[in-house]
């Protein structure tokens, strides 16, 4: 079988348009920047009816031109995807193959955008996101990877299993046909093979799932820790504030990689440090939920008690499931009988064991992120604490935790949501760093950092094995940053 070209037959039509539009867009953007300073501002013209209209001059013309060029470029990309998905790999090369494989993602994205834009006025801040171009692009990139991750985990998108080795496919360039493919097999390695002859495309898709399942939750936990500690530190001040701030500054003074090298080693795991940290850090959501509900509903015991029992019961069960492993909360016995154990949830009820590698990675990422979140929450709360509505609540006789969680926290939500998006991106970068140094995650894990690390050894001869995961990570983090920027812009408009 012939190796696939990048765009196949589709390319003869679309490639010239694409490159022409991209080149012209670059030129017009440079012109726009220069003209913004060099060109005279437009002349004002007095119309017969007495109104004044200013024409925008050459700058306006160029900026309109670059807008149309951008639209043309987007239209071309959409055409690549749409026609490519119809024609498939035989008609439209690698692009077609990718577009066809990613079909569930396109459908999900189109549905999501159609529904969101139709109801955007009823959806609050989320709906307003669709008013800003930057925010929409960012959200699109993020959701693209979320869908890729989710569908990839359901084995919808991948062409081969991420660990399957096919003989003769070592370091093959993108689009190489599979040697001796049988009927059920996908006939190409769309993005080439890596140095162990595994399919790069399928590994990227599986790697997206690794990120999607860890990064948001780790960030969420870091926020729980940061909020639960930051609010009282700011509200009470005094020695509590000093103590927690001192501890936070201790952690912040470590360069992150050093901390990873100290925390994510097999030796440390053998002593059980990550388990202790997990037991400590995972307790914060429970404390947070308990205080949150109790401070609000403690005046209505008939509602409070059942609510607390259900919510806390679920959370504590989740906590035990996450932390305990094979019937023990902590088990430092290594081979011989040395070490000690804490009994935990019986194995019969424990339907989910967190793989130890993932646990270490998760815990260290939460640990690294939470001091920064603490500082942000503390700073916001110190500011909001002086507002009148807080004084009013104090006068009403509300308890301190009610004021912190139901008066201060909701009013700090804007900056916190923006930071949450940025921080997921940062967490993604941290996960990549861990993979890049081969810390924590198993060496055959398909996550992007590990893949980049594997691929970089042959980078100057076969760049495809490292460059595609690198670009994937880049687009996901860029999407999160753009999303945060869009959210910030829209929340400032209120």
């Amino acid at each position, binding site marked *: 079988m012939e190796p696939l070209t990048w765009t196949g037959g589709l390319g003869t039509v679309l490639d010239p348009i694409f490159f022409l539009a991209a080149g012209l867009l670059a030129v017009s953007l440079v012109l726009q920047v220069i003209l913004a300073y060099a060109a005279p501002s437009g002349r004002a013209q007095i119309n017969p009816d007495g109104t004044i209209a200013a024409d925008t001059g050459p700058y306006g013309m160029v*900026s309109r031109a670059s807008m149309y060029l951008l639209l043309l470029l987007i239209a071309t990309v959409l055409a690549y995807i749409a026609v490519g998905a119809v024609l498939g790999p035989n008609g439209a090369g690698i692009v077609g193959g990718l577009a066809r494989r990613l079909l569930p993602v396109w459908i999900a994205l189109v549905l999501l955008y159609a529904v969101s834009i139709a109801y955007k006025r009823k959806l609050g801040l989320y709906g307003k996101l669709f008013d800003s171009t930057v925010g929409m692009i960012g959200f699109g990139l993020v959701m693209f990877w979320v869908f890729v991750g989710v569908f990839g985990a359901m084995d919808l998108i991948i062409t081969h299993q991420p660990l399957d080795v096919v003989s003769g496919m070592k370091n093959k360039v993108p689009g190489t046909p599979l040697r001796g493919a049988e009927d059920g097999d996908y006939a190409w390695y769309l993005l080439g093979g890596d140095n162990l002859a595994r399919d790069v495309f399928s590994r990227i898709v599986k790697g997206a799932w690794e990120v999607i399942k860890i990064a948001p939750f780790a960030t969420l936990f870091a926020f729980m820790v940061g909020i639960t500690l930051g609010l009282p530190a700011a509200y009470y001040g005094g020695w509590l504030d000093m103590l927690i701030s001192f501890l936070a500054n201790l952690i912040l003074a*470590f360069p992150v990689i*050093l901390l990873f090298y100290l925390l994510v080693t*097999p030796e440390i795991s053998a002593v059980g440090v990550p388990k202790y940290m997990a037991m400590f850090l995972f307790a914060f959501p429970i404390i947070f939920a308990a205080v949150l509900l109790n401070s609000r509903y403690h005046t209505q015991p008939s509602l409070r008690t059942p609510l607390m029992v259900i919510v806390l019961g679920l959370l504590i069960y989740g906590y035990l499931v996450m932390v305990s492993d094979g019937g023990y909360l902590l088990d430092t016995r290594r081979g011989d009988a040395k070490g000690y154990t804490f009994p935990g949830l019986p194995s019969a009820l424990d339907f989910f064991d967190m793989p130890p590698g993932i646990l270490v990675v998760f815990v260290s990422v939460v640990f690294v992120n939470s001091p920064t979140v603490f500082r942000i929450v503390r700073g916001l709360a110190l500011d909001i604490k002086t507002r009148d509505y807080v004084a009013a609540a104090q006068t009403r006789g509300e308890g301190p935790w009610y004021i912190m969680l139901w008066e201060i926290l909701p009013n700090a939500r804007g900056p916190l949501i923006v930071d949450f998006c940025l921080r997921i991106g940062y967490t993604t970068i941290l996960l990549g760093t861990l993979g890049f*140094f081969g810390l924590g995650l198993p060496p055959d894990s398909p996550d992007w950092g590990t893949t980049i690390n594997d691929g970089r050894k042959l980078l100057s001869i076969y760049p495809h094995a490292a460059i595609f995961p690198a670009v994937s990570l880049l687009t996901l*983090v860029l999407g999160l940053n753009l999303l945060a920027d869009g959210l910030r812009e829209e929340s400032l408009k209120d």
Partner: protein
Amino acid sequence: MLFTALCLTFIVFFLTNLEPNLEKLAKTEGNFRMSDEAVQSWLSDRGYTDNTFVKFGRWMGVAPGWETVKEDGTVLRQCRDAKLPEEDRATYCGVLQGDWGYSLRFKTDVSNVISERLGATGKLMFFVMIFMVPMALIVGVLAGMREGSGLDRSLSTFSIATTATPEYVSGVIFIAVFSSSAVGLKWFKGSATSALEDITFENFTLPVLTIALYGMGYVARMTRASMTEVMTAQFIRTARLKGVSFRNIVLKHALRNALIAPFTVIMLQFPWLLNGVVIVETLFNYKGFGWALVEAASNNDIELLLAVSVVSVAVVLITQLISDIGYVYLNPRIRVS
């Protein structure tokens, strides 16, 4: 601050001297088939089984070093001066005496390794700073002087893109584009090993660019924010009403005020730059401080890892101090009373 430094040092000491680390050390130094008893006696001969605080005191040089006389008369001492005559031997030999220990990976004194590697990284950082700071300030000031203009939007997008690109991504892309035979540009070298002896444009551009880009976006955004804030201040409006030209407003009135905030940010960037250094030195195989960190950690070289950690934590704390002092010095509104 000294207390913070002491706490941090102790944490690092504790984490590097955990029992499994020591066992591994005994097995790599002694032999791999040692029985548990042999490991224990090897460790206790070298003072590793004592209380952590005692060990920490010894390492710091405030407690007398360990000394074991074996049955056959050989003397094991923490102070590596057993060859000297008895009266010349030191009792205290820790960090305070200038003795950082012995690196097992590099087979030489830790202090030698540190100074040599730190020198190499110093060169890298110097070039990074020379490139990063002016670029970041120019981008930030240009973007911030007319908020919302086309230039502002393009430069802001550029700085967002650079902050979204971690070093291991941009480094990989740079190598693939500029030095691989697949793309064929081959402008630069993908490895900076030769830069240790001889820095050339060809072997040092990519590492410097890679570190600088990631840090640059953040500093540029801070500069932009502070510049836009200054440009809306009253005294700028006054200057405009007086008829001062836009160029003079920016250069003479706004710039100095707008540069206070970025200064502190640049100083606080050092922990991030240290991260970048570790990644880039690994990626480009430049044998500097970050490379030494990776080598020490992956070879269980406890004393070198300790020294590397202490030095990097010290760098972070010192830059924080400089940033605080510099802020007070630059900002006329804050005076130390």
